């Protein structure tokens, strides 16, 4: 299942907003099976920050585990956000 992250809005910044977006996914955009990956598609993202994405991923992983996968992107703000979420 592919999730269009840009569809959550033009400004994806705060932790509360990231958690809220993930709760919407858990309610309305559930994967069809227990094994289907959840792919995060950043191609339409305008502005995103690590706080939003970290909260979004953590909230999804609390239910779906490591099936949540970030697709590669060459959008600078997405690249920097994904880099900040990598372990040190």
């Amino acid at each position, binding site marked *: 299942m592919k999730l269009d992250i840009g569809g959550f809005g033009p400004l994806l910044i705060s932790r*509360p907003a990231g958690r809220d977006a993930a709760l919407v996914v858990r309610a309305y955009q559930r994967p069809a099976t227990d094994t289907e990956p959840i792919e995060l598609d950043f191609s339409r993202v305008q*502005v995103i920050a690590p706080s939003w994405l970290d909260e979004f991923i953590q909230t999804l992983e609390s239910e779906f585990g490591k099936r949540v996968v970030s697709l590669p992107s060459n959008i600078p703000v997405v690249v920097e*956000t994904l880099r*900040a979420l990598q372990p040190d």
Partner: protein
Amino acid sequence: MSSLPETLREDLQQLIAWRTSRQLSHTTLVCVSRDQLSARLPRIATLLQHPDAALITALLGEIGNNCFDHNLGQWRGTAGCWFAYHFSAPHFWAILADQGQGIRNSLQHVLPKNIQSDQVALEFAFDKRVSGRSPEQRGNGLKFVRQIINCEKPRALLCYSGAGMVSFGAVQAELTEAYAQYADRTIAIVGTTSVLQWELPL
């Protein structure tokens, strides 16, 4: 010698007044809620009309949201995030400030042995993946800020909290000197103040 634009210097005077009066001395520059900050941030892209606008907006969003993430119910003065910015091509400046508990207090209860001063607390906050909001697993926002600023491009960030101060970026000396002409360190005795300078490539 570098200098800040006249409009930003005027805003700095208002920031000082806001800090000392503990009142909303200039309400249009104070976001009293996260929603107000989120409503103002998109105007930066409209103002700049530049590919770097997304990175700048994300960076300011991270710093601005920290005001609320770590200070709700912990304000030492007026609640909210003081936010001003100016653009005079090719330079963009922004100031974010709060009257919150400051970075040292925010971290003290999670790492008491490591935090011995405002300066150590500030350096630790930008160097490590750590957050005062234990037990939540957080703390990558300032890492994001540091990695964007720390490059060979002409960018700089100053951050003051209590008696501590850290600076990053290729033009940090220039910005520190310019800022010091108009505001001394006491501007951040209560809470935190961050100052950004970003030169937009033509």
